[in-house]
């Protein structure tokens, strides 16, 4: 039986999540903003029709949004993450193998579904996800991931298709490949596009019909693989188990600007504590932490400073307290007292690049950290935060979450409808 991959994604996913819990948003233009309420990162069809572009800075469109009655929200990632988990739970009822590609896109392996049943199954999948979670989706089917992604693009842009496009069907495949511009393909950037156009490639079918070997010279092995994938020869398997994390970063823009050492250290400590949580979740550790902080390039004419320093630990750890010690040491050794005009820092973060599985990592001969004591303490800390909400228990250096006024801004955020009893949506009786 031939291979069939489906790519299913949520339509205007973040906006759709907001609409599930607020019936007033139906049929209205809705946008969701990025961290610190910076740019529009999700738009409903109604908002797109008003000309709001992806990534449009909010300050540029604020007046227009008010005039046109656009409903504007800060990102509520707690809600989106939970709704994403729900949609994926439904996908697993339909396919044994599911690759969660991003928060709103998943690849499903439908190879064991009979060819003539695939289209109906995809429609059933859409209807079920819509009914159970409230999220509208589109499904693209193809013999490879590249074709499934292309089919999904077609399903989204051609409303007549009813949300499903099946490129495993030879008639559909022949129909669409010569009609879609090559620039719409997954993985074709601006640079590759220019090269392809110089080679006379216009449609996706033109690219498919190129000889793969010379293409390799112009577009590397990625371009060659794309041609094989367009011909229906699968080169990209489903990644069912995400690759082990090699590095991890916690970086945030401040809501405003930070000029004093105390606040900067608190922010860096909070990021280090978060880094520890992430490492513990994956059973990883690190013996090196890079700490950075810098001023904003938008603050023209003001003193600029950008600092990045590496702090080494005697052995790998995921202990928040050890990581905080290392991170704040990084600030201490690079801090410079401001002169007349202070440096106004806009962002800080901690980064690790060489993570190791903690259980197998070698122990230090000198300066050994107390893993035996820190393990249960960190487990209790994580359990408290899982049970009573993020930030219920924090290391003192990181400051109480409610008092962190440097924290990223989410001023128009909706409640965490699905994960907090205090935030549940209300039904009138």
């Amino acid at each position, binding site marked *: 039986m031939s291979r069939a991959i489906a790519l299913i994604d949520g339509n205007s996913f973040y906006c759709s999540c907001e609409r599930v819990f607020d019936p007033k948003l139906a049929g209205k233009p809705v946008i969701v903003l990025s961290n610190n309420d910076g740019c529009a990162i999700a738009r409903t069809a109604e908002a797109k029709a008003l000309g709001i572009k992806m990534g449009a800075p909010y300050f540029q469109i604020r007046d227009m949004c008010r005039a046109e009655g656009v409903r504007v929200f800060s990102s509520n990632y707690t809600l989106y993450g939970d709704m994403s988990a729900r949609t994926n739970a439904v996908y697993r009822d339909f396919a044994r193998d599911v690759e969660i590609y991003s928060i709103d896109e998943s690849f499903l392996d439908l190879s064991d579904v009979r060819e003539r049943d695939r289209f109906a199954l995809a429609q059933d999948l859409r209807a079920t996800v819509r009914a159970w979670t409230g999220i509208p989706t589109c499904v693209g089917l193809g013999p490879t991931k590249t074709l499934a992604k292309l089919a999904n693009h077609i399903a989204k842009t051609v409303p007549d298709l009813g949300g499903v496009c099946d490129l495993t069907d030879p008639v559909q495949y022949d129909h669409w490949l010569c009609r879609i511009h090559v620039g719409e393909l997954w993985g074709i950037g601006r640079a590759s596009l220019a090269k392809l156009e110089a080679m006379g490639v216009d449609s996706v079918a033109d690219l498919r019909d190129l000889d793969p070997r010379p293409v390799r010279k112009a577009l590397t092995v990625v371009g060659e693989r794309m041609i094989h994938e367009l011909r229906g020869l699968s080169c990209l398997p489903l990644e069912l188990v995400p690759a082990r994390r090699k590095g991890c970063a916690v970086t945030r823009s401040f809501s405003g600007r930070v000029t004093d050492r105390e606040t900067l250290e608190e922010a860096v400590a909070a990021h280090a504590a978060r880094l520890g949580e992430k490492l513990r979740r994956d059973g990883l550790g690190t013996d090196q932490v890079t700490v950075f902080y810098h001023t904003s390039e938008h603050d023209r004419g003001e003193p600029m400073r950008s600092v990045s320093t590496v702090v080494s630990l005697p052995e790998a750890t995921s202990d928040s307290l050890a990581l905080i010690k290392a991170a704040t040491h990084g600030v201490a050794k690079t801090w410079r007292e401001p002169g007349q005009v202070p440096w106004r820092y806009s962002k800080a973060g901690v980064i690790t690049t060489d993570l190791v599985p903690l259980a197998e990592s070698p122990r230090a001969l000198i300066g050994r950290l107390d893993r035996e004591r820190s393990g249960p303490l960190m487990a*209790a800390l994580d359990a408290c935060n899982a049970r009573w909400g993020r930030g219920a228990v924090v290391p003192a250096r990181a400051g109480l979450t409610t008092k962190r006024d440097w924290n990223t801004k989410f001023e128009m955020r909706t409640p965490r409808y699905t994960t907090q009893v205090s935030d549940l949506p209300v039904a009138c009786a």
Partner: protein
Amino acid sequence: MGIARIEELVSGSADAVRIPLIGQSLCAGFPSPADDFLEGALELPRWLAPNPPATFLWRIAGNSMHGAGIFDGDLACVDRSLQPADGSVVVAAIDGEMSIKRYRLEGNRAWLAFENPDLPVFAVEELQDGVIWGVVRFTIHWHTAKAALKR
């Protein structure tokens, strides 16, 4: 907030499912922007919530459903995967408001009704598609007048 022993916090209780039942939610392609905001899901035992991805909790505000034993401040467990039948209690979107109502079905005619003898009979006729948000499986009503720990 009760007092829990650390061991029971860490292990969690075996017969509770999280709503939703989240598997591995790490993304293979793009790192999830939700990664830093994930919270433990609300927990319900499996026998009460057989279909976690379609199960949501709502809080009730108002007194129009006393007759059904549903009171102000109660929690309603709503399952979006259930088809409403005559007599179901449902959460429905009416004029842009979410409300909890009794669903009535006679032949092809469906309507929504209050359930409180003190209130005038009210019915939403001719239900359109998508009005019913979900079917209430059960509600939770607190009987503790004042929660104090007995020592």
